[in-house]
């Protein structure tokens, strides 16, 4: 092979490679980062629970849970949305004032899984009608559903001291 011919062949190969690279379909871009919006949606959902609890709207409260949700309380574990309904009903019927203070929300980069932590303050009245407040620490694991909504997969709470 002559020097010129060899050089021509090499440049042709290079040109072909450059062209094939350029002709490749657009590289899939990194998925959009939805974490800030996801965190806002979860913080809003925390407050939605407070609102539906105040309104004693059990169905609305239950709509925040995934079908296979797990409720872990210091008194014991409850598995499945149908079974969780009962303890949530108990919470609503007690007519307590509930406040939720979200302290941190950790969302996966892919926006499909999140750990939400904070405190729940529950105020009721004792037998003498005197207000009594107890504070619990909570850890909620949220999962994004195919429709884009966030549902609670695991709801853990226990009193703080």
């Amino acid at each position, binding site marked *: 092979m002559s020097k010129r011919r060899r050089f021509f062949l090499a440049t042709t190969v290079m040109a072909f490679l450059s062209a094939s690279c350029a002709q490749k379909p657009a590289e899939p871009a990194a998925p959009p980062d939805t974490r800030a919006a996801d965190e806002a949606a979860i913080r809003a959902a925390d407050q939605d629970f407070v609102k539906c609890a105040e309104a004693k709207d059990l169905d609305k409260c239950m709509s925040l849970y995934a079908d296979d949700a797990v409720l872990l309380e210091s008194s014991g574990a409850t598995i499945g949305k149908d079974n969780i309904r009962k303890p949530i009903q108990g919470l609503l019927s007690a007519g307590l004032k509930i406040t939720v203070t979200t302290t941190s929300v950790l*969302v996966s980069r892919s926006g499909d899984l999140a750990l939400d932590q904070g405190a729940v303050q529950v105020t009721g009245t004792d037998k003498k009608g005197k207000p009594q407040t107890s504070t619990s620490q909570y850890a909620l694991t949220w999962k994004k559903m195919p429709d884009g909504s966030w549902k609670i997969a695991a709801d853990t709470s226990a009193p703080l001291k």
Partner: protein
Amino acid sequence: MPGNRSAALSIVVSFAVALIAGCAQAPAPVDTRKADEAAIRAAGNALAQAAIAKDLDKCMSFYVDDPVLFIPGSPAVVGKDAVRKTFQAFLGVQSLKLETSDLIIDVAASGDIAMERGSYANTITDAKGKVTTETGKLVLVWKKQADGSWKIAADTNAGDK
């Protein structure tokens, strides 16, 4: 001069190789979920082994710096120092047998956060030789660290009712 010609050719070939490599590198995120799930299972087993060996430092190495721990019938344990004290008490028995079953691990598509759930059975032999078995449900939230290792951000447990 043959030397010059082959040098020129090798430059051309190097460019070609660089182009091929450039084409092959896709910026789309890699799905690491299978490997992540295996790594989390291995970390969970290693934590149990460290607990059985009563190696407190090793146990704590599986937790993030700001973990939360929920154990049946007890207040929430918040922060690494508090978790360490609780672990120290847990390990201060004669012997431990820790078993888990039905573990399901959901790793976020981005491979940075994972949720593990399942059942546990802890058989504890106390200082006086009395043996008790506690069964319950667990939900752990794992967070991938900068070095690629997985650590527990939330270790939540509740006893079977």
